[in-house]
């Protein structure tokens, strides 16, 4: 069991959600975050000065899924979240040892 953590553009959330839903991936937890990637954000010209806007608003999606589903989830997110421009975000995969449904107590 894995947790797929994807940090994407906020405006892509709807798109990613729909794409995942089509693949039958429904459960997820979404958090508003701020982030900066290796480009250190966007550089704005201002007179002679240059200001760097790091810490742009991003959306973090966490999905816990079985090992087999992970690749499909990654692909789906990649396809639905990509614009090809800097700032598209990252996907991380973390191991999960246990997953319990509070309502039923069932371990999945």
């Amino acid at each position, binding site marked *: 069991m894995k947790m797929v953590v994807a940090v994407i553009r906020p405006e892509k959330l709807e*798109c990613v959600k729909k794409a995942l839903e089509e693949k039958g991936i429904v459960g997820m937890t979404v958090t508003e975050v701020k982030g900066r990637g290796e480009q250190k954000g966007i550089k*704005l010209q201002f007179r002679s000065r240059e200001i760097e806007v790091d810490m*742009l608003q991003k959306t973090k999606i966490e999905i816990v899924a079985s090992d087999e589903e992970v690749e499909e989830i990654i692909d789906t997110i990649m396809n639905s979240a990509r614009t090809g421009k800097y700032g598209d975000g990252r996907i991380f995969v973390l191991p999960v040892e246990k997953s319990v449904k509070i309502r039923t107590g069932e371990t999945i």
Partner: protein
Amino acid sequence: MDSGDTAWILASTALVMLMTPGVGLFYSGMVRRKNAVNMIALSFVSLIFVSVLWVAYAYSLAFGNDVSGVIGDASYVFLNGVGLEDAEGLTIPHLVFVIYQMMFAVITVAILTSAISERVKLSSFIVFSILWLTFVYAPFAHWLWGGGWLAKLGAVDFAGGIVVHISSGFAALALALVVGKRGGFDEYSIEPHNVPMTLLGAALLWFGWFGFNGGSALAANGLAANAVVVTNTSAAIAAIVWMIVGWIKGKPGSLGIVSGAIAGLAAITPAAGFVDVKGAFVIGIGAGILCYLAMDFRIRRRIDESLDAWAIHGIGGVWGSLAVGIFAVPQVNYYTGLLLGNAELLRAQVIAVIATVAYAFVVSLVLAKIVDIVMGLRVTAEEEYVGLDISQHEEVAYT
């Protein structure tokens, strides 16, 4: 001088002043968090620049001695000769008239920021608004209220259906076409970031409109009373209409309710001193339906006149200005409309509407183009993406 009239117009001035940040809040709630500050800042920018220019020369252009029906002369530049004594033909000090009229110019510029929300370069907006005040607003005010050609023709505009709403609404449409759509407009839905803020803005607008229309009687009298009553009625009924339409198509959103209210307020503006409460019902119902359809049309045509100044103020202003010619009743203010058998007024109103719609649209388009070519009306794609709060103000709305 009548102290009661003066008291009412002073109070109305304050009420109309508050509408401008009211527009800012109303608009700001509907944009994204990253542009929240900018949207309110644009309303303050309208307030501070127009305030200064009005005193400097724009009041004189609008209300100076008539030059061939087109514009006022320079007699009141820097308020020369404008004193504490009564304005001619009025019972209030001339200075009260100046500042009351100023607040109309201020809010008109604030309204048109709808079209350029979330993408305008601050410096270019300032330049554009100076030009626009000079070449569109001041002439319109002169034509209708300063004794210009439309007034001579017999057209009327009680509180700014043409001068304020048609002018800003059609300027917004022109601006939207020049400046282009917001990045992402065709890809994802751009959601309001703070609905309560928009509702607060709408509340301040409704509140201020009592001074906007009621004060346009320029006295505290029965005419002012009539204006306030029909204004409130039109707003309420248009809000109900918009709400019902929303209910038919889905859920009755709060933004729909207040949009309807603003449509009703805009539409009754030119008519508030000429129609009675029955006329207000019809005008309100018409405003609810027509402005909704206009918004719908705009969205279907994928025009990013983002916060619907055109659909609400522009179309509302057109409808109300024509409606005067239909529903005016002489018990309110001498004028008689078509329903009571007089076609003259409607004729004048039709000419006024056509002329001002065309002028506002074309001249605004030209001015926007010029500014765009000379200095760029729009921020860069990166600046737009990170938001105008950071890129134009180096500020963050909420931490």
